[in-house]
C-alpha cells in the first residue's frame, strides 16, 4: 500500500494475507525498494509484522503488514538488507524467520542472555589467528566487541557484536506521546539530538494532522544542518588524527566546538536539546542573533575550509585514505547502507532529496563514488559545503510567521512513518497508535542499524591496522543501534 511520508495512514488497510505479504515484500524489494523499517507488533495474542519500503528514486513509500503467529519466511537469503531486522524480530517476538542464515542475538535482551556471549564465526587453520577488541576500549568511546579472523595482518572476517548499550528505549515510548518521549528521542543517540527529535516530532505531527509553520521548519533545518556541520567537521578531524596528521586533527576539534556553540546560542544546549517540540520549535531567532550566527558561521566555515583542504592537498594523507576500506556500490545497495557511507559508494540516497519536505525543497546532493575512506571523507566535505550554504540561506531569508502551532490529540488506530536525514544518514521513526490515540508501538531505526555491517564488509581482505581508520570513516553510533 502506498503511503505518504509524514502522514497518518491506517495500519488495517495495509494488511495482507501472510503468503501474499512475503510475495509482495520480495517483489517490492527486488524492484529496487529498500526496507526502512521491519518489525513485529503484539496484536491480540499474536503478532503483526510491519514493513515499510522506500523507493528512494521515486520518493515513494509503501507499507505492508500481516498477522503472524509462528515461524515466518525469512527474506534475508535473497535480501541481505533485512538480516538485522529479522534477527531483531526473532529476539523481540520469538517468531522465527525460517531460513535465516544466522540468528545471532542483536541486543542480548532476552531472559538469561549475557551481552557478548554468543557463537562467533571462526576461521580455522594453523596460521589463522583471532584478535578480539573491546567491549572496553582504550579511548573514551562506546562499548562494542569486535572479532577479527586474521592471517598475519590480513583480515579474513570481522564480526561486530553490539548490544551493550541497550536501554529498552522503544518500550518507553509506549503510552506516549508525552514530555518524556521527546527527551528519549533527543538522547537516544547523543550526537544526533536534532535528527531524532525531528523524526519524533514528524511522527507525532503526522498522527495529529498538524501543519508546522514554515518558520519552525526552517529553524529545525538550521539545527539539523548545524548538527551535521559540527559532526562532519569533528569526523574529518578524527580521520586526520587516526593517520597522525596533526594540523587538521587539532583544528577540527576546536572548530567542532565553535559549531556546537552556535547551536547553544539558539537553544541553550550545544547538542540542540530542548529546541524541538511537536508543532514547532521552542526558541525563535531575533535579528541580533541572526547577525551573530551569520558572523560565526562565516568565521567557522572559513577555518574549516582551511583545515580540511589540507587533507586533500597532502599526499601522505591521500595515500592513506585512498583505496582503504572499500565498500563496492553493489554491497552498499545490497546491505541497504544509508547516509554518507552510501553516498561515498555512489548510491544517490538522501532523504532531503528523495523525500523533500519543508525546508528542503530543491535540494541537490553530492555523491563521491569509490567507496573508500577517501570518498567517505570527501562526501563529508561536500556536505559541509552544502550545509553551510543552506544555513546561510535560511539565516538570510527566514520565513516570517509563528515558530510553533498547537499540536492536538493523535488519530487513533493509525500509523505514521517519519524520515529525516540525520548527519549519519536516514533516521526512520514509525509510530503506531491504539484505539485511544496513544502509542501502542514505537519503532526507531538509526542509520547505524543499517551501516554497521558495511563496516564489517569494508574490512574484508583489508589490513587489520586499517580498522581504526575505517571505523572512524563510518563513525557509527552504538547507542543509536542498541536503543
Amino acid at each position, binding site marked *: 500500500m502506498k503511503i505518504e511520508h509524514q502522514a497518518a495512514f491506517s495500519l488495517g488497510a495495509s494488511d495482507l494475507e501472510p503468503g501474499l505479504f512475503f510475495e509482495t515484500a520480495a517483489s517490492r524489494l527486488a524492484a529496487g525498494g529498500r526496507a526502512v523499517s521491519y518489525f513485529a507488533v503484539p496484536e491480540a495474542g499474536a503478532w503483526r509484522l510491519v514493513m515499510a519500503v522506500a523507493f528512494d528514486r521515486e520518493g515513494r513509500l509503501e507499507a505492508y503488514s500481516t498477522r503472524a503467529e509462528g515461524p515466518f519466511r525469512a527474506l534475508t537469503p535473497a535480501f541481505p538488507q533485512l538480516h538485522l531486522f529479522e534477527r531483531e524480530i526473532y529476539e523481540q517476538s520469538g517468531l522465527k524467520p525460517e531460513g535465516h542464515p544466522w540468528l545471532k542475538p542483536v541486543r542480548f535482551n532476552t531472559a538469561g542472555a549475557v551481552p557478548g556471549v554468543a557463537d562467533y564465526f571462526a576461521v580455522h587453520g594453523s596460521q589463522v589467528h583471532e584478535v578480539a577488541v573491546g567491549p572496553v576500549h582504550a*579511548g573514551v568511546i562506546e562499548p562494542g566487541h569486535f572479532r577479527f579472523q586474521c592471517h598475519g595482518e590480513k583480515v579474513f572476517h570481522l564480526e561486530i557484536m553490539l548490544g551493550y548499550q541497550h536501554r529498552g528505549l522503544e518500550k518507553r515510548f509506549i503510552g506516549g506521546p508525552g514530555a518524556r518521549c521527546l527527551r528519549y528521542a533527543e538522547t537516544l543517540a547523543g550526537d544526533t539530538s536534532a535528527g531524532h527529535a525531528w523524526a519524533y516530532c514528524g511522527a507525532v505531527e503526522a498522527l495529529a494532522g498538524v501543519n508546522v509553520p514554515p518558520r519552525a521548519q526552517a529553524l529545525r533545518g538550521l539545527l539539523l544542518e548545524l548538527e551535521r556541520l559540527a559532526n562532519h567537521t569533528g569526523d574529518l578531524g578524527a580521520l586526520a588524527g587516526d593517520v597522525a596528521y596533526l594540523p587538521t*586533527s587539532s583544528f577540527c576539534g576546536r572548530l567542532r566546538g565553535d559549531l556546537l556553540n552556535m547551536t547553544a546560542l539558539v537553544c541553550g544546549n550545544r547538542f540542540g536539546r530542548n529546541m524541538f517540540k511537536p508543532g514547532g520549535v521552542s526558541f525563535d531567532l531575533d535579528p541580533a542573533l541572526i547577525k551573530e550566527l551569520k558572523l560565526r558561521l562565516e568565521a567557522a566555515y572559513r577555518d574549516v575550509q582551511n583545515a580540511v583542504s589540507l587533507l586533500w592537498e597532502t599526499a*601522505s594523507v591521500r595515500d592513506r585514505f585512498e583505496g582503504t576500506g572499500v565498500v563496492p556500490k553493489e554491497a552498499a545497495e545490497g546491505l541497504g547502507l544509508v547516509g554518507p557511507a552510501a553516498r561515498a559508494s555512489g548510491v544517490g540516497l538522501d532523504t532531503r532529496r528523495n523525500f523533500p519536505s519543508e525546508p528542503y525543497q530543491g535540494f541537490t546532493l553530492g555523491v563521491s563514488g569509490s567507496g573508500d575512506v577517501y570518498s567517505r571523507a570527501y562526501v563529508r566535505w561536500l556536505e559541509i559545503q552544502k550545509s553551510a550554504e543552506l544555513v546561510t540561506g535560511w539565516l538570510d531569508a527566514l520565513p516570517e510567521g509563528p515558530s510553533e502551532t498547537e499540536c492536538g490529540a493523535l488519530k487513533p488506530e493509525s500509523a505514521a512513518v517519519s524520515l529525516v536525514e540525520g548527519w549519519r544518514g536516514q533516521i526512520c521513526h514509525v509510530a503506531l497508535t491504539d484505539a485511544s490515540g496513544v502509542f501502542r508501538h514505537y519503532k526507531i531505526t538509526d542509520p547505524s542499524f543499517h551501516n554497521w555491517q558495511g563496516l564489517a564488509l569494508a574490512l574484508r581482505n583489508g589490513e587489520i591496522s586499517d580498522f581504526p581508520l575505517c571505523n572512524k570513516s563510518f563513525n557509527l553510533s552504538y547507542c543509536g543501534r542498541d536503543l
Partner: protein
Amino acid sequence: MEIVKPLLQFLAAALLAPLLPGVINRVKAFFAGRKGRPLLQLYYDLAKLLRKTPVYSRTTTWVFRAGPLLGAAALVTALALLPFAGRPSFLSFDGDFIFLLYLLGLARFATVLAALDTGSAFEGMGASREMQFAVFAEPAFFMGLASLARVTGQTSLAGMFGALTGGTWSTAAPVLALLTASFFLVLLAENSRVPADDPDTHLELTMIHEVMVLDHSGPDLAYILYGAALKLWLFAALIGSTVLPRHSGSWAGDSALFLLMMFGLAAAVGVVESVIARLRLTKVPYMLITAFAFSALALIFQMGR
C-alpha cells in the same frame, strides 16, 4: 683527566636524554596551535612511575619482568659507547659499532620476548610487526655504520667520530649526506615516530612499539620509557656527530654545539610529525628499504672514492 670527561659526557647524556621527547612534543604542540605539555614531562612521569608498584598478570613469567630491565640495561651500555661531540667515549674498543648493533638487538629481543610472554593478541601482533620492520632497519643501520668506518678508517665509534672533521665533508660530502638521510629514516622507524608509527595513538590495532608495552606498569614502564628516550638520544647523537663533526675548539664549546644540534634534531622530528601523515603499515618497509639504499649507495661511493 681522560676518564673524567668521558664519564661526565656519559652522565650528561643519561640525564638529558628524556628532554628530547619533551622538545618533540613542544614542537608538535606549536604546529597544532596548542601550548603543549611541559618540557620536563617525561622526568615527572619517570619519577611518578618509579614510585609505583608494578602490576603483573598471572599469565606472565620472569621473562615479562626481565624484559624492561634488560632493555634499559642494554641501552645504558650502548650509551657508554657513544662519543659525545666527537670526543672519546666512556667505553671504546675496536669494532665496538658491531657491539652497539647487538646491544640494540638485545634490547629489542628482550622487549619482544616480554610482549610475547603476555599471550595477548595485541602484543603478539606488535611483536611481529617490530621484528618484521627490524629486518629492514638493522641492515640499513649496519651498512651505514660500515661505510662510516670505511670513510674514517676506524672501527670504534669514538674513533670514527673522532676522525670525522669538517674537512671530511669537503672530501666525502655525498657519502656523509646519504648517511645522514639514512640514519634519520632509521631514527624515525626505530623510535616509533611518524611516519612509521604514531607515538600518540591509543588505537592498539595500529601500534607497533607501543602495543608491546601495554601490560607493563610502574617502574617497569619507567625503564621502558627511559630506554626509549636513550634510544632516541643515541640515534640523534650519531646523526648530530655526522652532520656537525668535531671542531677543534674547546671541550665546552664542542659540547654546547653538540647539545644544540641534538635539540635541533628533536625539533626536526617534531616538524616531520607535524606536517606528514603516517604511512600505511605495509609501506613502512619501503621507507626502510630506502634507508638501506642510501646506506648502500654511501658505501659504494666510498669504495669508489
